[in-house]
């Protein structure tokens, strides 16, 4: 199994290190050819406007969208969630538009409002997991095929639709491997 991490901008190496800890081969995805080598892809945190623009400029947007629509297991963290959403509440830009969710960018505020929370996410593990929110988005509306995995302050912060998983928070910034393990099971 080989998992790609979209490597245009943002927190890439943190995801690669977590995958390696689970003995999964991970590669950076920067070019069209890289898409042919992977069984699943993680869209990392970073700036969605930057990554979205580079997806277009590098001609990756259309082929990646087609792959996700044809079932490639995909996980978007933070900015990755925004890239996957069909609707963005406070932005005119749209990117991959593959998941039936409406998201709000920087929904909790600016950096001073970034926070950590320890919660149990039963879908992923019975043990408490540290959830790190950095200028994070949340899901304000979800389509009927979207399964809600977790809420914080009554806002949807993790969800799944078929082959697509999204989280507002960053499991790659903690020592916990449960979410990566969960995603690897989706790839398998």
């Amino acid at each position, binding site marked *: 199994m080989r998992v790609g991490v979209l*490597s*245009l*901008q*943002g*927190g*890439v*190496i*943190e995801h690669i290190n977590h995958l390696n800890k689970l003995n999964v081969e991970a590669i950076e995805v*920067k070019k069209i050819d890289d898409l042919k080598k992977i069984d699943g892809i993680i869209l990392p*945190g*970073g*700036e969605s*406007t*930057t990554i979205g*623009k*580079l997806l277009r*400029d*590098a001609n990756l947007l259309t082929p990646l969208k087609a792959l996700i629509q044809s079932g490639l297991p995909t996980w978007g963290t*933070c*900015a990755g969630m925004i890239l996957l959403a069909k609707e963005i509440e*406070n*932005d005119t830009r749209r990117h991959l538009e593959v998941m039936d969710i409406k998201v709000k*960018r*920087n929904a909790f*505020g*600016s*950096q*001073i409002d*970034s*926070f*950590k929370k320890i919660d149990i996410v039963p879908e992923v593990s019975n043990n408490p997991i540290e959830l*790190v929110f*950095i*200028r994070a988005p949340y899901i304000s509306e979800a389509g009927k095929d979207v399964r809600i995995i977790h809420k914080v302050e009554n806002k949807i912060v993790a969800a799944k639709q078929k082959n697509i998983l999204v989280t507002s928070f*960053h499991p790659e*910034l903690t020592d916990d491997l449960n979410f990566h393990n969960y995603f690897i099971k989706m790839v398998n």
Partner: protein
Amino acid sequence: MERYELNKDLAKMLKGGVIMDVTCAKEAEIAEKAGACAVMALERVPADIRKQGGVARMSDPKLIKEIKSAVSIPVMAKVRIGHFVEAQILEALDIDFIDESEVLTPADEKYHINKWNFKVPFVCGARNLGEALRRIGEGASMIRTKGEAGTGNVVEAVRHLRQMNEDIKMVQSASEESLMTISKELNAPYELIKYVWKNGKLPVVNFAAGGIATPADAALMMQLGAEGVFVGSGIFKSQNPEKRAKAIVMATTYYNEPKILAEISEDLGDAMFGLEIKNLESNFAERGW
């Protein structure tokens, strides 16, 4: 400590990106559209500060607010070295990152800001490992090379990043019993020297800054190990800012692909006018310690 971890984490999300100096809302929009991962709000770019002289201070809060409302990406702003009240003001404005910057005229010749007193993250300039670790010891969440801002000359940024890399290698290959002596020689906190010895890198993200003017400059800094770049005067002092901004963003992502670099370097118009370091009246990099 939790706040500090969150602040270091925000810096990680900027990696592989370009942070652009902007002096108005319109420039901020151009920067965001070109793919900047953050903008630095200031009244004059370093090239103009250098040319016009006088005391350079924190920007007018009105300008910072206008820029904040014009873009959705993080907004940074500069304060003078040691000017903790300017920093308090920026924190009150909900700025995303403060740059305690040698580009502005220092307010304190002896002390930098005690950054632990703030919730908002700080980035600081450094010329070598000792300087970087002193700033981190004071609470900086991110480091950038000082380079020589406003010159369009990348040579100082290269010197500082190479020095940082060499210092890190030296610490890494040292024996454990020599770490206190190294700490003394570099004037750097022992615990942070120990971190570098164990991990072979800084405990925070490290960007390049000061003199980057072309896509090739950005790619050079990335190949030398920078985790992202700041571009100050290099964009809006060039002939075609929009096109150059886009090209520098591409170059920072595809820094290892000479064919792509060749394509995006084509027909960008004139770069900003560059200055020889030896002819400068003042070296900003020498401000701070």
